[in-house]
């Protein structure tokens, strides 16, 4: 067993990480940094979604629920009690975990498409509740976050680069957790549930428990993203925090990149956000609808042409360039 850094994939990860760390030192354009931050954030939430949606194939279209709970918890703590969003972020994560228990208990009764619909409903109910209760959380108007200037302890920074590094750290956290889950018993159970839930149950996997556990982790991470997002844009309202587009985008990047793979959501986000940034610079931002039209076309093409996502394409290309990966060559299927 070689140390991780000496293996080929370890080398690439190290190279990628270095490039990501150096990037803001080279690029100082604020428009470009804004795009990078979006990419990192959505890749992170995509990774969080992928833990449940990708490995266990529990297709949630309601992750905005946890994004929003994270955003609101930290904002309420900040504005009402002056508590730093760094703490609020984890409080939001805990609130999201608590919320995932009853939501999971309800939604996991359904499978496939109807699970997806039920999760949409939960996110929508939360959004409508926050719209309705104005004395509790500013209602439909929302609120701007107090600008405290350069206050790193309150998660507010002068430079965009600082936000970039926070988002990068979140993504690294998400990837590290996924990497760990992938190689644990939990990972195998999740894949078993994703392949065939009844069969998994039959060979002794406690499917209800494993789904509940992964939902907890996924909800927690998504909530961290929600806090970061409102801290970054300095504004919160129910339509932003519980936006259906968030639910859609995090699922979409995973599908396009490749569900149930470590790097799939990252590949998907880079591709989709790059496309959207290019479109914006060509057409200006005035054309509502262009971005999602292109997203959905990409999605249709990916599903029809390569339903397992684009990451497979990259690995194939990579293997073709480097000839076969020696580690792969030894992998003989057990059942011959």
């Amino acid at each position, binding site marked *: 067993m070689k140390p991780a850094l000496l293996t080929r994939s370890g080398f690439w990860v190290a190279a990628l990480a270095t490039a990501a760390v150096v990037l803001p030192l080279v690029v100082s354009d604020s428009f470009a940094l804004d795009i990078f931050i979006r990419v990192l954030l959505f890749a992170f939430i995509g990774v969080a979604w992928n833990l449940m949606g990708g490995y266990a*194939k529990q297709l949630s*279209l309601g992750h905005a629920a946890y994004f929003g709970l994270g955003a609101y918890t930290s904002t309420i703590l900040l504005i009402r009690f002056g508590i730093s969003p760094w703490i609020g972020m984890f409080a939001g994560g805990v609130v999201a975990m608590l919320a995932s228990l009853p939501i999971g208990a309800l939604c996991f*009764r359904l499978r*496939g*498409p109807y699970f997806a619909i039920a999760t949409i*409903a939960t996110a929508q109910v939360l959004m409508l509740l926050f719209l*309705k209760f104005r004395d509790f959380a500013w209602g439909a108007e929302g609120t701007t976050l107090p600008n405290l200037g350069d206050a790193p302890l309150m998660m507010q920074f002068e430079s965009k680069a600082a936000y970039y590094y926070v988002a990068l750290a979140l993504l690294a956290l998400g990837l590290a957790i996924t990497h760990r889950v992938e190689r644990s018993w939990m990972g195998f159970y999740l894949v078993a549930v994703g392949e065939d839930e009844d069969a998994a149950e039959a060979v002794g996997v406690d499917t209800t428990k494993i789904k509940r556990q992964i939902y907890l982790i996924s909800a927690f991470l998504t909530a961290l993203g929600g806090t970061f997002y409102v801290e970054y844009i300095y504004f919160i309202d129910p339509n932003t925090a519980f936006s259906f587009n968030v639910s859609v985008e995090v699922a979409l990047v995973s599908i396009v990149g490749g569900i149930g793979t470590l790097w799939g959501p990252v590949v998907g986000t880079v591709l989709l956000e790059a496309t959207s940034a290019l479109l914006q610079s060509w057409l200006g931002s005035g*054309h509502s609808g262009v971005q999602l039209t292109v997203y959905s076309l990409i999605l249709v093409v990916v599903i029809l042409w390569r339903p397992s996502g684009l990451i497979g394409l990259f690995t194939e290309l990579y293997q073709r360039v480097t000839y076969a990966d020696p580690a792969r060559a030894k992998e003989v299927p057990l059942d011959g």
Partner: protein
Amino acid sequence: MLEVLAQAVINGLLIGGVYALVSIGVTLIFGVVKIVNFAQGEFVMIGMYISFFLASSLGVDPVLSLLISMPTLFAIGVLLQHFLIRRVLALGDMPQIFLTFALSLLLMNVALLLFTANYRTVQTAYSEMSFHIGPLYFAVAKLIAFVIAMLLSAILYIFLHGTDLGKAMRAAAQNREVAMLMGINPDRVFSVAVGVALALAGAAGSLLMPFYPAYPLVGQVFVLMAFVAVVLGTLGNITGALIASLMMGVAESLGVQFVGADSGLIVVFVMLLLTLALRPNGLFGGWAR
């Protein structure tokens, strides 16, 4: 008080009839083809725009224009089945869900590009008309929509039970493999099922046009309602979907009346979540026989 309640129930029932057309389509596709069409609401939207443009350019009455919107959407349905849905039938849940979901996003956003987000309405002689029986008001446009929706549902019921093609569809819904062994051509049956479902969505669009504005995202309202009704009415059960849709209409209307104008959807979603908690298999039995 009682009058207010009765009035809310009537309004709910009338709009519930239109919801039923959408739900029946969703449940029909689910029953026969075994996929959930997330884009069903967008076909309602297309139906509405067809009627809007026929009314605004040629002066065709929107309700009458369902003679055009229904066959058009039937044709779109057959093409949809042939070029898209057929290709993902052998794949798992995930590609199927995301195909129709992508289609929904695509249609919404193309509509946004072509028609802008503006609300389009059609004024007919009967748009504002209503009559009353005792203290209760009936809006004529909604009543027409309700009656035609029930008529179409009845025709579908007769088609499914009285014709060979309809029986073939029900057979394919019950057991695809056995149906194929009996010589039923699944491609044909699936095409008809998707076509009929979309035609119903188109009819819903045309019927809504005299009293409901058309805009690119309008389908979302109806598809969410339909999904709840389809779960409530037991997946794949057409009569169940019909009854559940009427219930949803009433629930929404009561919510608006007694909880507040923007709470109709909350009531609907809470109903869904309660159903999932208490009766996850819906209120009714399996496929209507």
